[in-house]
Structures are given as C-alpha cells and as structure tokens.
C-alpha cells in the first residue's frame, strides 16, 4: 500500500519532469542555427524566398517561438506529437515503429553488462590480488577509457575483414522470412556486435564496482558473524555478502540508464541499427523538430520508467528502505 502511494507520488513528479524536459528541449532546438526549410532548400539545390516563406507559414515556423511552444504543448496534451517534416508520417507511429529495435539493443546490452559484470566482479573479489582480479582491472580501464564509437569501429574492422562471421550492419539480412525462429536467429546474429560495443563500457564499470563492493562487504562485521557460525564459504559469499554488495550496483544501473540510451544513439549510427538513436541523429541533421521532440519525450519516459523499476528493485533488495 505504501509502495503504491509512493509510486503514485513519483509518477506525479515524473509528469512535471517530462513537461519540463519538453519545454527546455523545444527552446534549445530553436537556438540551433537553420530550420527545416533551410535544410530542405539545401537538399533541393536552392529555393526562392517566396517558396521558403510559404513553407514556413505552412509549418507554422513564422510564428513567435513562444506561440509555437504553446501550440505544441496544446497538441501534446491531446496525445498528438505532430508530423515529421521529413517522413510526412505521424511522429508517434514513426517512433513506435522503431522503439522495439532500440529497446532490444539497450536491454540486451544492459543485461549483458550487469550479469557478466557482476559475475566477473564476484569472481575477482574471491582473490583480490589474483590473476583474474588484475586482468579485470586492466580490461576495465581499457573498456572504460575507450569511446563507444571507437570500440564499435574496431569490432567492425575485426568482423568485416579479419574474421567475417558476424554481420556488421543493419538488423536483418536482405533475404528474410524463413519462419519466426530463423528470423529471430537472424536478428540475434545482427545484434551481437552492437550490443557488445554498447555493453563493454558498462561491463567494465560494473565488474570493478562489484569487486570493490564485494571486498567492502566481505570485510564487514556481519560477514565475520556468518563465518563464526560455521557457514560454508559459498553461503557466506552469496547469501550474506552478495545481496549487500548488489545495492550500489542497482543504484548505478539506475543512474546510468540515460547514458546507456545516449550510447545507443552512437552505436545505432555506427552499426546502422534501425532504432530511435539512428532516427534521432538523422532528425537533428534535418532539423526535424517534431520528430526530435517526440524522441526526447520518449527517451525521458524510458529513463523515468527505468528509475522507477530500479527503485522497486532497491526496495525489494534492502528492507531498510521504506516509503518515506
């Protein structure tokens, strides 16, 4: 009950936050030089001033910015995210069409990073000065310092020429449809490299964090108590230490979900993955305001949902936290 009340309050704050994000993004985009009509004119190889003015008034771009904002918010309140200037499609359907690809990529990378990161971290904490522990430290530093696009490009070079066993671009092979099973396998095959590039940084971070957190917890009084009870090391490790060591990991995963989405934009661009990130990148170049705003709205929504989920996880993992 307390949890439901807590969630309701959080949702209320989230709604205010989303509106704030929308207003701020709307104003920020207008600060960038050029508008959709300029971009269009550039692509068509020039355009007379009259046609430009006509287009601007058709799109409502000749109105003062604040009036445009008002109109946008008014439509937004009725669930209308507007039309993409470029695709001539409703922004909502454009986004919903690409959302699954991004979710697939981001969630795969997240699960990969959290699961293998914690496993490696726990293994490393068993022998804090052992070979694995040191290897993880080295790999983490590299993984942490390497930008996502660079990792991605190196992987492309490796798998495009040296070891061509994985596809380096797109989400499906040209000739598809061999039943849902083959299709899924095909997508999974294409998913390997993008998910890996996106996950590497976080995997490195989480393994280091887990190692540090485990070492911290293993030195605590209650772990000593567990040992003094005669419990097996395995039980001391997983029942007593691991659950406590996971608490900071949960926090960090929540905080970093936004970064993960940002990373997805780069990875989708590098690997030509047909998701929201790719769309966002193109929309910025095209000054496709409605699409961009819609994307920002959805991203903030995703981050908020992720944070809510993390809060729930935290509550389940740590009995000391109560709705307050």
């Amino acid at each position, binding site marked *: 009950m307390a949890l439901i009340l807590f969630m309701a309050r959080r949702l209320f704050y989230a709604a205010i936050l989303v509106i704030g994000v929308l207003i701020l993004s709307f104003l920020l985009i207008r600060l960038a030089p050029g508008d959709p009509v300029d971009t269009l004119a550039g692509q068509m190889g020039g355009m007379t001033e009259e046609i430009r003015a006509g287009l601007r008034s058709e799109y409502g771009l000749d109105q003062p910015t604040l009036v445009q904002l008002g109109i946008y918010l008014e439509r937004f309140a009725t669930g209308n995210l507007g039309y993409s200037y470029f695709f001539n499609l409703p922004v909502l359907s454009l986004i919903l069409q690409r959302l699954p690809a991004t979710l697939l990529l981001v969630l795969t990378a997240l699960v990969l990073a959290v699961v293998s990161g914690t496993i490696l971290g726990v293994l490393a904490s068993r022998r804090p000065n052992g070979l694995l522990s040191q290897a993880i430290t080295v790999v983490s530093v590299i993984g942490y310092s390497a930008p996502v696009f660079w990792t991605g490009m190196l992987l492309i070079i490796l798998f495009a020429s040296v070891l061509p066993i994985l596809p380096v671009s797109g989400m499906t092979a040209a000739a598809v449809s061999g039943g849902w099973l083959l299709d899924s396998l095909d997508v999974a095959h294409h998913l390997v490299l993008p998910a890996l590039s996106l996950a590497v940084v976080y995997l490195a971070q989480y393994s280091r964090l887990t190692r540090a957190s485990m070492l911290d917890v293993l*030195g*605590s*009084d*209650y772990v*000593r*108590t*567990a*040992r*003094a*009870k*005669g*419990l*097996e090391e395995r*039980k001391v490790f997983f*029942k*007593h230490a691991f*659950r*406590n060591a996971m608490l900071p990991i949960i926090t960090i995963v929540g905080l970093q979900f936004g970064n993960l989405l940002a990373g997805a934009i780069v990875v989708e661009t590098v690997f030509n993955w047909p998701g929201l990130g790719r769309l966002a990148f193109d929309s910025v170049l095209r000054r496709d305001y409605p699409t961009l705003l819609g994307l920002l709205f959805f991203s903030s929504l995703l981050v908020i949902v992720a944070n809510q989920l993390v809060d729930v996880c935290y509550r389940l*993992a*740590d*009995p*000391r936290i109560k709705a307050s």
Partner: protein
Amino acid sequence: MAGTGMPLLDISGLSVEFRGGSRTARVLNDVALTVAANETLGIVGESGCGKSMTALAILRLVPSPPGRITGGRIVFEGEDLLQASEQRLRDVRGHRIGMIFQEPMTSLNPVLTIGDQLSETLVKHLKLDARAARGRSIELLRAVGIPAPERRVDEYPHQLSGGMRQRVMIAMAIGCEPQLLIADEPTTALDVTVQAQIFELLRELRDRRGMGLILITHDMGVIAEMTDRVAVMYGGRVVEEAATAEILSAPAHPYTRGLIACVPDLDAEEAPGADLVEIAGMVPSVWDLPRGCPFADRCAEAMPRCVAEMPPTTVMTAGHSVACWLHQGVPS
C-alpha cells in the same frame, strides 16, 4: 564456581602477526590461556592489547591477509584447532564454540530477517528442517528475553534496538548449545541498564548449560562481578593470570594494579570533582613493540632490565602467574 579436571580449552604459545608492506606487527606473543567447563575466564586490558584478536584466533577468524597465526596450539576438547581442516573448523564454529561480537549494530546482516539468520546455524549444525529451525529460533529468542518472539523472528535487524540485537546475537551463539561461549565486549555499545541484563543472561546461561565462558572486557567492575579467573593482557601478551579474587586483592603486575586503581570507587567519600586515576602514557603500537617489557615506559617501577629484556612468565603461587621482573627475585 571454578571448573575441575581437564580444561575445555587450552591455548599455549599462540602468536599472531600482521604484515603491512615490509613491516610486521606482532599482535599476539606467546599467549597461554585455559578455560574449564562451567568456568568464566575474563580477559581484560586496554584497547589494542590483543583481547579481541585472541578471541578471533580461537576460531581461526583472524582477518587474512594481513593477519596470520604464526605459532602455538589451541586445544579444544582434546583437538588442536590450528591443525584442523577448514571443514572440521566449520563444524566447531557456531556449534561447539559460539561467539558474540562487540558491535551488535553491525554484526547482523541488514538484508536478512532475524529468523533467517538464527535458523541457518540450526539447519547447518543440528540438521533441522526449515520449519523446526523456525520454531527453535522463536524459542531461542524467548530464552534470551525478547518479547513477542513470534513477531520479531520475521523482522529485520534495523527494526530492533541495540540491546535487542545483542540478545539476538547471544541467541545465535547459544543456538546449538556450545561447550564454549566467547563474548567479546558484549555490552560496550549498550547503555548501563541493558548491560546488567545482558550479563545476568550470560551468567544464567552458563550456569544452566555448564558452558565455559570467555568474557572479554576492559571493565574491571565486570571482571569482579562475572568471572572466576582473569587474564590481564598488554601489548599482545598475557602479563598476569590468577583467580579473580586474588587479582583483585593482591595484583602483582604494575599494570594490573593500575587497572584496578582506575576503577572509580563510588562508596569512597571523596570530594566531588576529585581527579580520576589513570595510567599515564599510551599503549605501544603493535607495529613498534619495544624489545623489553611492553609496559616499561608507562611503569612507575621500571628498571633498566625491563627496557632491555622481556620478563618470562613465572608462577608465584598456585594458579597465579605473572610476567614482570619485580617478581623474578633480585634483578641483576
């Protein structure tokens, strides 16, 4: 109440070292202690004298690295625990020897329920099933004086007060009816009224179950009230050991005399605001122990020999031994 026959626990020559970089700290030096069944041995001394380390060493729980047991024998019920396998040791820990730690606030796992933490010892050592272990946990909570144990068993440590948590620790330590209970400053973190209750509980448990009890404290008042025999530790050594009554009436080591003099006498008609007695100086760092007697630089009766050479332990009268040059006949 002194025990008779073969000692339950017989420690001799116990030494523990800590390594930090190129330096070595001798945390315990040649410690010898015995405890009989149904006997309470007090270990007293200031912070950093090796009391807690002795307790941890008995269960081989010295944090390693950096710590290491470098020598000695810890014979418990005829078996040397220092030679025992890890697996054998796990059968002794929490089963034959129970341990209560100093910090009730941090010694319980915050994410597991009280019942969960009590049951796991019972399941492991007494092979109870989950249901029986839960029933026995509730009984144990009741035995240590926790009200509404049926409800408390499902609560988490943060929902309990410090005194209640220490009671849970005690319930956990006695759950498998150990032969020996080690209580390391069990009441330091608790307020005075709760302290008295905890000691009463420990005494009652010892009498009822005939356990040996090692009570570690820095409080001479507790020693006087609770123990049959006392070992006074300083600088990682046992500097004096005797029956409690004897230590209190005829302390031999200057350090022991200092500790006793430090106890404020509430009955004495001293002027309010009279100075409290203290032992001047500080406990030497274990990283930098002197060659001679570790107490020499704080001792009013120190002689040149005290600084140069560590005094051996000598038996003064039956059951009263001391390590001090003052009691070695004429110093050379």
